């Protein structure tokens, strides 16, 4: 009779030789940060306009969130809470799906569909796939199958948001006879981007016009009119701060929050694009900082991204609705025409109408969403722009950051005061509506989610 010991040892050896490895695949919050960062990088390369970029963040974030919420009772599905979303498919009970892994896979796959340079996502994805497959092929395979199934489901929902249809709609018509209407601006004179963005299906707000702001002061270039004063204020502030040079706080603020995905630069005979992140990308970056600072686990991170992305996507729809309604001319055009033909704003004027300020609306909305998750007076150091050669800036709250983002547009010489003040309010009102109407956290759930380290 053989020794049981020997037998057992033999079995272990046998298993080790014939069966696949089965270490559990651990997915941390960093995985989602990496996938979101990758989306940002590809969007910078591919050149996505700010409103389109906000859509690119929203759908992958929601896909990841829905998978996560299906498995974590502390969170509620967005089914029935955002327009047109139905319950995502569920994996079969016996399938060894790692829901966090599936969430990341769905996130990456939707991202891949939404950007142009797919190889930049697939290279990233395939190297991760390789690691996961080695670790636990069964779990990986099940999670991938499921993650892709959910991605497909979300993509089908996404297809109904009117994005494809708006591609063929008419361009924005520049009316050069009406002096109050927006005109393309130097140096690229790009046509007005996304004039039909208000026809994109919103997520939470009931229509693009729900947070229609009060109109801007009536156009009037007579000295002393309210409107003229606004134009003159931009000019005066700009002169004042540029005189003080690049080290002035206002110039630093303007540059920090530029967030213009396509700035056209001329050097000698050469013209090229300086490509930066969009306002949405900046706030996704702040979301990452907040998650890291709080040690948020994967699930909470997923929640934070989804909520911020939804608020921002709706903010862009609301803002763009107003932009092409009021159709207001940019300060650069008016100042060059009426005051100083050699004046140039500190920032390059982006290619769409002035009112309201997109960055203000979006920052207002994003700050409300993040405050809802991480609380008031959440102080943080914002290093999002380090990669783009800009310094770290510190803020005492999301609200303060949003206010600074808003006023930066005036320092930058690309917005009047009204567009900034009304814009940030428009964003806050919209943000408040979004958080009031989204029940994502199960309030009955026990206290706060565990941090990643505790979870181990």
């Amino acid at each position, binding site marked *: 009779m053989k020794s049981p010991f020997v037998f057992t040892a033999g079995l272990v050896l046998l298993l080790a030789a014939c069966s696949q490895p089965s270490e559990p695949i651990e997915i941390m919050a960093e995985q989602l940060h990496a996938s979101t960062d990758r989306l940002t990088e590809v969007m910078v390369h591919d050149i996505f306009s700010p409103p389109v970029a906000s859509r690119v963040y929203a759908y992958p974030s929601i896909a990841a969130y829905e998978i996560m919420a299906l498995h974590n009772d502390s969170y509620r599905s967005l089914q029935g809470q955002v327009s047109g979303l139905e319950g995502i498919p569920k994996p079969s009970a016996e399938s060894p799906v790692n829901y966090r892994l599936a969430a990341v896979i769905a996130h990456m796959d939707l991202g891949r569909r939404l950007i142009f340079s797919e190889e930049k996502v697939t290279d990233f994805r395939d190297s991760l796939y390789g690691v996961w497959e080695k670790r636990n092929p069964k779990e990986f395979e099940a999670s991938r199958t499921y993650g892709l199934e959910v991605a497909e489901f979300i993509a089908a929902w996404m297809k109904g948001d009117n994005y494809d249809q708006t591609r063929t709609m008419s361009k924005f018509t520049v009316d050069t006879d009406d002096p109050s209407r927006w005109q393309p601006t*130097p140096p690229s004179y790009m046509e007005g981007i996304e004039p039909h963005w208000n026809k994109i299906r919103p997520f939470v707000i009931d229509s693009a016009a729900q947070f229609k702001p009060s109109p801007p002061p009536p156009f009037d270039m007579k000295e002393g009119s309210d409107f003229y004063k606004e134009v003159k204020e931009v000019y005066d502030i700009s002169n004042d701060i540029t005189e003080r040079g690049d080290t002035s706080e206002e110039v630093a603020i303007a540059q920090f929050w530029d967030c213009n995905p396509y700035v056209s630069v001329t050097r000698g005979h050469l013209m090229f694009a300086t490509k930066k992140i969009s306002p949405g990308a900046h706030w996704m970056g702040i979301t990452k900082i907040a998650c890291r600072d709080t040690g948020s686990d994967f699930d909470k991170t997923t929640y934070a991204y989804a909520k911020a992305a939804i608020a921002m996507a709706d903010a862009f729809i609301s803002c763009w609705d107003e932009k092409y309604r009021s159709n207001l001319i940019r300060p650069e055009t008016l100042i060059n025409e009426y005051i100083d033909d050699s004046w140039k704003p500190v920032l390059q004027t982006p290619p769409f109408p002035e009112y309201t300020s997109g960055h203000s609306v979006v920052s207002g909305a994003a700050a409300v969403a993040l405050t809802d998750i991480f609380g008031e007076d959440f102080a943080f150091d914002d290093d999002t722009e380090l990669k783009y050669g800009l310094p770290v800036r510190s803020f005492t709250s999301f609200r303060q950051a949003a206010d600074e983002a808003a006023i930066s547009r005036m320092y930058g010489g690309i917005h009047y005061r009204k567009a900034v003040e009304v814009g940030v309010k428009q964003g806050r009102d919209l943000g408040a509506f979004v958080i009031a109407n989204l029940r994502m956290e199960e309030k009955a759930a026990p206290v706060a989610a565990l941090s990643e380290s505790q979870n181990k």
Partner: protein
Amino acid sequence: MLSFTRLAPSETGIQFKNELNERPELNILTYLYYYNGGGVIIEDFNQDSLPDIYLGGNQVADALYINQGNMKFQEVTAQSGISNPDGWTTGISHVDINGDGLQDIYICKASGYRGLKGRNLLYVNIGADPDGIPRFEERAADYGLDFSGLATQAAFFDYDLDGDLDLFLLNHSVHPNRNYGKGTQRTIPDPLSGDRFYRNDDGFFTDVSREAGIFQGKAGYGLGVGISDLNSDGYPDMYIGNDFFENDYLYINNGDGTFRELISSGSQEIGHSTHFSMGNDLADINNDGHVDILSLDMLPEDLITYKTSGLEYAYPIYRQYLNNGFAPQYMQNTLQLNTGRGSFSEIAYLSGIAATEWSWGGLLADLDNDGFKDLFVTNGIKGATNDMDYMNFIANEDIQRRIDKGMQDADLPLTREIPPKKVPNYVFQNNGDLTFTDRTSTWIGQEPSFSNGSAYADLDQDGDLDLLVNNLDQVASLYQNNLETGNWIRLTFSGIAPNTKGIGARVIAYTAQGVQVYENFTARGYLSGVPGSMLIGLDQEVSLDSLLVIWPGGSFEKHQGIPAGQTLTLEQKQARGDYYSRPAAQNYWRATDTLLPFVHRENTSLDFDREPLIAYAKSNEGPDISIGDINNDGAQDIFVSGAKRQSAGLFLQGPAGAFSAAESDLFANDAINEDTGHLFFDADSDGWNELLVISGGNEFTDGPALRPRLYRNNKGVLRKDTTAFTGFSLNASAVDSIDMDLDGDLDIFISSDAVSGAFGKTPQHGLFQNDGTGHFTDVTTERIPELQTFGGIDDFSWADINADGLADLVVAGHWGPIAVFENTGSGWKYSADNGLDLSNGWWNCIEVADIDNDGDSDLIAGNWGLNSKFRATRETPLTLYRSDFDQNGSVEPLVTYYHNGVETPFASKDELVKQMPFLNKKHRTYRSFANASLEELFGADALKAAVKKEVFELRSCVFLNDGKGNFTKVPLPVIGQASIIYDFLCEDLDGDGYKDLMLIGNLHELSTQLGRLDAFQGVVLRNEKDGTFTWAPELSPPISGAGRVISRIRIGDNEQYIIGRNNASPLFLTKHE
């Protein structure tokens, strides 16, 4: 064996190489014209009758070479006293500055920028030493010519005809080149880069720019200057080429010390110019005695280069640019054909010379001595800064930050990442019929280079012109001419001092090839100059019949029977009289545009906002003009259509032939309609003309704005019949009456050319039967069942085509053939196999007339013409694919054309990806997009599934009838293809019993990738009695603008013609008594 031999530097002794030495403070990223190269001049500096050579270097010293004969040259720069190692030489000129008969050298320097120092230099020739080496002294300051700034090129000529040579100094801006601002900034002088005009006051040059009326703004990126007496009034005019957004300047000499600039004045005399203007040359290309203007640009012939390069702004943005005070200009070479009436027809595409890559210098010279001037082009750029992939994807953050921090030596490789375009120069042979044939591969070969300045001269004195080219980073090229050339006569000039070379003399040679005109202006091409002597090509003629030389100031002299193969020296002191005191020949036509108080005001074309992929707008179709008697007073009245939001106008002719507006309120009610056609006809047979008005214009999709309007005539008073044509709306193109059922009343046919907002979609037409009281019933389907699937119809005509006594229907439209629907007695049936089947075109109009006087009905059809990048044949058609390529529920109209045998989408990548983002997925970079085939881009299945329409013929043509309804196609002559044709006047104008043709056309609202079709300035074609036509300039009236229609009208006792023009007032023509 190439016809030009490129001689080795070791043979010629010319080792000059314009080599660049990039430094952190000076390179293409700091000085925008760093790659623009240097010039070359050729002239005899040592009085041995052999042309010598001076080559300019940017960062190397200039070099002077003395011609030792037999293509051997000796460098004598230092021996001759020229010490010019510093600074940046641009253009070079030769001139006898002091009237001593010796040729001096004036050198332009770019200075005052980025460490570039120095000033322009004047090397005065003090005579050759015993070894034949000319000696020079630098004396610019003594003459007031020591300008310091960003100089490009100098042109010396006598602008005030006072006997001495004055100077236009072309300078260039370094202002950021994309911020175009307002056009009016050209009036604000800029000391560093503004152009200058200097008057020669007894040997000292005085800056008279302001008095002369020269623009001196910071936006003048001057790269080309050409001098010529363009209007043949004895006073030299100037053409200035400006790079980037600033207009070119066409300065007409007023003869009083001032110039008037035509292009910025909004003049219609010149339609459009080069956008990124480089060098130019002014010479007569068609031997009609009028000097034409060639200006070069940077349009690539290579399709991949084109599709990866920055293009013009899209139409809506371009419109804003024009509104800021700029004139239309497009990225293409332009050839402005001088009509001799003060206007120009731009025909570079028609001529086949529009695209020669990134081009610098163009020289018009008769290289093969066949009597027509050929074209040599230098080109190539060391770094194509308009490469879209470089701008968007390669110039990454890191590169940019390093540039911004201030470049270091280690950063210089950055500039080498800008894609170079090292390409062969071009040479074209003049075919003598306004067109040129590319002879590069057989004449000079396809050797790539970066070539800038160039000049021609008979360097080896064998009776043909050789070419010298200044290259970047490569030894200058000397091309020896070994063509089997024709006979020649060489002319040299002996002028009265101080203009000893007779600069400005005009030579008219009467040869078998026509009237050859030469002008002795030496600054030509780019930064360069040719000798002040001439070679006249005689082809196979053994002698020159006669030659007239007209000297500056007008004295002239005639020479006759000059045997070929000799040099003739023309002497100003032999000349007598004043050539310009002769009375000008009287024009055949008198034109006025003030007879009718009406100006057609077109609203902004939104076609390209709505359908960015299309090639041309369909919304600028009017006005039509109808002539008829509305009040039965025997005088002809006029009805002219209004554009959208403009009332149409009815004008009654009074007894004195004056016109007064009538029924204004009635037409104001329907101002919203863009009217496209109308008809006076007696609908109810009561003896009074009704008025039927149709509307279209691609602005509305449905409703009353597209409904035909019938105005009933109650004894001279019009009233709208609101019951007529209810429920019927179409984008109408043409209307006419026909008694189709021979019941004695007039029935109506209305054609349609478009479905609004759906480019190329097949529209429906309407044939309406009259019940005798002017009530109409749609009988299209019963009577012409095949018509509703035929396609768009822009014009039609009822005529008996097959001589059976019944009226057939002839139609013309876009994407379909000219077609005849034969009258069967009970309806109309499409007539196949009649010679018209494959005539698919972009047809706009059709006339029926007996062209060859054989008693049957021939067809004259107006088409798109050949003055655009499009060519179409059966094998290489223009194609429209209508399909929902991105499956988003709306159809994209994809238009393709063939470029050198390759089918390619017309719309740019930027426009296509906005409509179909999936293209960006597959082809994010411009290079990937450019290299993809049509199938790779859109998918073979999707293309197959698309509704497909084709064009095989773009020429306007006559179709001759054999009497039985079979047709033979005869294209109109080359000039007839210079623009789009919307209408013809078909009448015998010269009284020979055969009908001649006056062409009416032009269309300005095209995709900016096409430019404008604006070359018709009034063209009459004479009937040669055999079915062919030739251009008759002497019968051609001055017609500017976008003509749409011509009608004959009797005003008082005068026969006149009225021409309806889009966005302009109607023009009236009368023949001179």
